[in-house]
């Protein structure tokens, strides 16, 4: 069943992609093939393979129970927050929180998570910024 849905989504994606390809404006300087042809070929392959997946599905994968899905979703939200807040609050603070959160959700105890968070963030800061000179996001405190 999962594969049928997957195939249908893929087919829709292929159709959408083909439409978007048709929308590409041709430049008057175009070469013989033009910018549309190859994307359309790709859309065709994408569509055909999606249909085959939908018509000849494999056994369904084992989907995690709802609470595990929520777990992944929460991790994604934390990562997005991390990406958005990184330039605002600086590397060390943002990273310490994100790493501590992930460690905690992967089953570390609270104290351990805090240590992992601080250790990861300070460790990466030391190696990447102080030793290797990579510019990391600077927060209000300069780190």
């Amino acid at each position: 069943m999962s594969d049928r849905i997957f195939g249908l989504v893929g087919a829709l994606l292929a159709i959408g992609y083909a439409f978007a390809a048709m929308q590409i404006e041709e430049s008057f300087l175009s070469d013989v093939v033009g910018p549309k042809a190859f994307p359309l070929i790709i859309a065709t392959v994408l569509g055909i393979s999606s249909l085959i997946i939908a018509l000849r599905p494999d056994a369904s994968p084992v989907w995690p129970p709802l609470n595990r899905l929520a777990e992944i979703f929460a991790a994604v939200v934390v990562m997005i927050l991390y990406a958005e807040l990184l330039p605002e609050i600086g590397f060390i603070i943002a990273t310490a929180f994100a790493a501590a959160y992930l460690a905690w959700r992967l089953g570390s105890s609270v104290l351990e998570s805090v240590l992992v968070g601080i250790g990861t963030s300070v460790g990466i800061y030391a190696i990447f910024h102080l030793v290797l000179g990579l510019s990391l996001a600077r927060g209000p405190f300069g780190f």
Partner: protein
Amino acid sequence: METLSTLADGFAIALTWQNLALALLGCFLGTIMGALPGLGPSNGVAILIPLAFTMGLGPTPALILLTSVYYGAMYGGRISSILLNIPGDEPAMMTCLDGYPMAQKGLAGQALAISGIASFVGSFLATWGLVLLAPQLVKIALLFGPAEYFALFALAFMTLGGVSSTNQAKSAFAAALGLALAMIGVDTQTGVPRFTFGEVHLYDGLDFLVAIVGLFALSEVFIFLENRHGGADGDSTKLKVGRLTPPLSMVRETTPTMLRSSFLGFLAGVLPGAGASLGSFISYSMEKRLVDKKGTFGKGDPRGVAAPEAGNNAAAGGALVPMLALGVPGSGTTAVLLAVLLSLNITPGPLLFSQNPDVVWGLIAALFIANFMLLAMNIPMVGLFTRVLMVPPRILMPVVAMVSFVGIYGISGSSFDLLVMIGFGVLGWVLRKFDVPLVPIILGTLLGNTMENNLRRAIAIDNGDWFTLIDSPLAISLWAVAIFGFVLPLIVGRRLKSSMRKKPHEEGSTKD
């Protein structure tokens, strides 16, 4: 002879303090990454790419660092296979079969030593294979025009799915998806934006490094979150190593096995789409058929440890051949290495050998050196790495995630790229659930634009005649191989893959 003198030049390049230090660092990190379950060669190399860039390394040093990681990971994978019965990465899963029983018999040290020697033999011979075969392949590749290149890329995509997936439709889907992603951005030939939906960030196209790190490294984090086996056992009682020197008779007994397996593994590596996992698998299967007269394979036969290790290390070397000579990688990790080259503005392929011989031969020389370093690290110092195995994923995975973020942010300094990477991480997780191979996606995003340019050039040369694609005997034979390679797995592939799947107990990490 000419090859030997260029190789000597390569050694002159590789033997600088900086390059030696990088090779040493790479070998060390690679062995750790290979040993840790959850970090394989491809995601290990992927998260280190930004590091190579930020260190401001030139092409040769960067490649030396990253291929040393690659070779190192191939060595390291065996450590957790033998000690914990958990393959450190996918190619090492066959090593569990005899390695773990040996460890249970109290022969862990000998198993580690014999597999270390086998790894050395495999990669040493494969590096020689690379030296001898790559220049020959280059001679053929020089005959290629745009039409032939287009066919070659098609061949790479069509054969790539062959072994890495049970379902050809899914690997075709993955390849098309990768190519589709590559089309995003301003068209290089006419200057019109494609699939950017007005988003300025997309005008330059998606950075494939972002895609790679997201698909390989972040999706791994999600897999661990899903299963929450963050607490995989770091049980120290299992980690008794014992005597590290194998008896001479054992070495003698396993020598023919190592030689045969190296040869087979190398072949498996050179063929597109096969990679190290297949190398270790066929080496083990063939040795079992050939020398397992008393039925000791699977019960702790040293030859059963030597065969897959020689096989997968040889395949790792073999996979570099098409990557360097044709610019078409045969496996996930070599695809990641290709991404490195492309980011450094170096186009692999036949011209690489004439325009940047220093890169090629410096790299090859460094591989020889790295091999000796790895042998030294992996036998006398193996105890150091067994201690690393005690780091549980619940601590490791946050570090992996954060290093990925830092690396990508370090390259571009934009939050937008981080968001795209998260998107790829989720995509990678979903696709792995559906058993869609990730390597064709990477390859698609890497090669998409070159493939299209070759297509357009070929047809433009012939004034719009699409039949030019199948006009030369060379192109026709490439297409024939491509179609054969696509259809053959439909017949035999399922059986091979399912028998490969039956053996491991643990969900393998990213394919190499």
